[in-house]
């Protein structure tokens, strides 16, 4: 039932400017894959190439093993949910849902059944007679998803579908989309710039930068073993701390402080440590540095400390629970050496 997608050296150029530089990726049937990256990294372009909305300049796009480069969008078995929802403003919700099926000349009774079923799944039955302008943002989003569902496509594509919603609704819809994936079991590709969405929803995350895949894999794999500085900094919130260090035999030197992480540090120029892996005062593990506390945010469940090392490097620390840390004081910070990430001068992880 589910469908596989494979990209082989996929390229996109506008005139002389190449924006997607030969992407290789394979998506297993039924996977929920998230393309994530900063603005302009090419994630939406890649999605639109898969959808058939952007011509492919080079390489191959295979869906279930068949080359699809020149196949029109409508014949790829794909439905897409747009960031703007792209609902037809002059049609009722019912007409919006039915449009694609009417285009396919499906019998009226079958259309009614399918629309009804999609409306039930998304709980939008009372809205079927309304026009899009009479709906809230969240309801429009549901209709947009409904329009994709009724066509019973092989693949669902989502282009930043939650970015126009407020924070609370975004979390709710995130859960619903994940649940929809569980229920339907289709292959889905989801584009976002929000790494939290990526971490919470994905079976597989693809991190893109400047038209190149920086790393792809399971969310926790990317979190635990980032391949380079970019992925390390992009995945995780608050982002990973980076300290400039130099290798000194088996030890590392940060400013005037020297310490060992218990493994080879040859070539290391940057040390990365996640804010949640640092302990203060009563910490165990290696003594990483002494930091001066600049600001403390008490969030109730967590305490976020913004500090500066004695040689002037910024450091964010997330402590569990409600902790008393006085701004202005200097405290030692510790970290479990197995949680330390090391990167060489090219920004690649040293494993």
């Amino acid at each position, binding site marked *: 039932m589910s469908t596989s997608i494979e990209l082989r050296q996929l390229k996109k150029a506008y005139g002389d400017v190449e924006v997607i530089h030969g992407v290789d990726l394979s998506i297993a049937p039924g996977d929920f894959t998230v393309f994530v990256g900063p603005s302009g990294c090419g994630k939406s372009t890649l999605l639109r190439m898969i*959808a*058939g*909305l952007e011509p492919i300049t080079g390489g191959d796009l295979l869906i279930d093993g068949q080359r699809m480069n020149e196949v*029109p*969008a*409508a*014949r790829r078995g*794909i*439905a*897409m949910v*747009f960031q*703007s929802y*792209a609902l*037809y*403003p*002059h049609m009722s919700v019912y007409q919006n849902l039915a*449009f*694609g099926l009417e*285009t*396919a000349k499906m019998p009226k009774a079958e259309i009614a059944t399918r629309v009804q079923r999609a409306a039930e799944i998304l709980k939008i039955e009372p809205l079927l007679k309304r026009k899009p*302008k009479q709906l809230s943002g969240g309801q429009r989003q549901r209709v947009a998803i409904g*329009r994709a569902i009724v*066509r019973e496509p092989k693949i669902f594509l989502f282009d930043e579908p939650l970015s126009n919603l407020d924070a609370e609704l975004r979390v709710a819809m995130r859960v619903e989309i994940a649940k929809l994936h569980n229920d339907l079991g289709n292959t889905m590709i989801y584009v976002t710039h929000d790494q939290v969405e990526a971490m919470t929803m994905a079976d597989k995350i693809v991190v893109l930068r400047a038209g190149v895949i920086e790393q792809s894999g399971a969310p926790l794999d990317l979190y635990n073993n980032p391949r380079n500085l970019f992925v390390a900094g992009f995945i995780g919130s608050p982002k990973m701390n980076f300290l400039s260090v130099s290798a000194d035999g088996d030890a590392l030197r940060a400013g005037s402080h020297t310490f060992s992480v218990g493994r080879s540090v040859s070539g290391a120029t940057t040390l990365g440590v996640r804010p949640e892996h640092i302990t203060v005062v009563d910490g165990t593990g290696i003594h990483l540095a002494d930091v001066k506390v600049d600001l403390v945010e008490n969030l109730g469940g967590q305490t976020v400390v913004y500090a500066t090392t004695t040689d002037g490097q910024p450091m964010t620390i997330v402590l569990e629970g409600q902790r008393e840390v006085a701004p202005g004081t200097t405290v030692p910070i510790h970290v479990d050496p197995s949680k330390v990430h090391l990167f060489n001068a090219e920004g690649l992880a040293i494993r």
Partner: protein
Amino acid sequence: MAVAHETTTGIDAAPRQQSAFSRFWQQNGAGYMFLLPWLIGFFGLTLGPMVSSLYLSFTDFDLLTSPDWVGASNYVRMFTADPKFSTSMRVTMFFVIFSVPLKLAFALGVALLLNRGMKGLPLYRALFYLPSLLGASVAIAILWRQIFAGDGLVNKVLALFGIVGPSWISNPNYSLWTLIILSIWQFGSPMIIFLAGLRQIPQDMYEAASLDGASKWRQFWKITLPLLTPVVFFNAIIQTIEAFKSFTPAFIISGGTGNPINSTLFYTLYLYQEAFGFFRMGYASALAWVLLALVAFFTAFSFLTSKYWVHYDD
């Protein structure tokens, strides 16, 4: 205390009234001074003549002697004893009914072509708009007369194919059509507005439709046209009013007569003949007011029906 209070307000009342005006003038005087040129124009050149023409429409007036009040007899004559009135009305209605939809369809067609993101768009836009600027001018009407005359350009081209064409402008079967073609040729201004309207339709609507498998043809009928209806509505109203008011081309091409056999006797042309040919100012004023009522009726009718076919976004 009560007496003292009344006295106080009594004394205050008069100066307060004076100062209310001077305060108003202080606050708004400059604004009204800036408005003055427009106000003079509006009252002196628009509203004044309108009101006096309404009065004159109930009189017999030849410009030389003072108007005689005749009641509604101008209007009675128009609808009961003036065959030229009904002829001119028929010619104008025919012109409106054919020229407006054809012009709008043509304007929309060209706008759709230009909207496909072609190179040199500003140049084409300017070129296509040009006839709208020139179209109602005397020079173009004269040119039109020569193009459609018996030995005009059209017949010279037809002669190349061995066809002997009639004199289009002096044949009552075709003369009005030459004016309709002239009107369609001035499609530039509705085209510019259509083009702006087309630009407003979000691209992702078309992308969603193409993913749904809708052909270009279906996209046009199901998405472009419905979303363009506010612009179609606006253009239809403006062009209908323009068509009712149309005068210069018919005047020049027929030499002011509305011939052949009154086939180009536009309502405005007949009005002009009555006013400045026969100096029947009272009757001409009545004709003008009937035209105004007719245009108002068409406009109101369009607005009333618009809720059934015009789709506004919000």
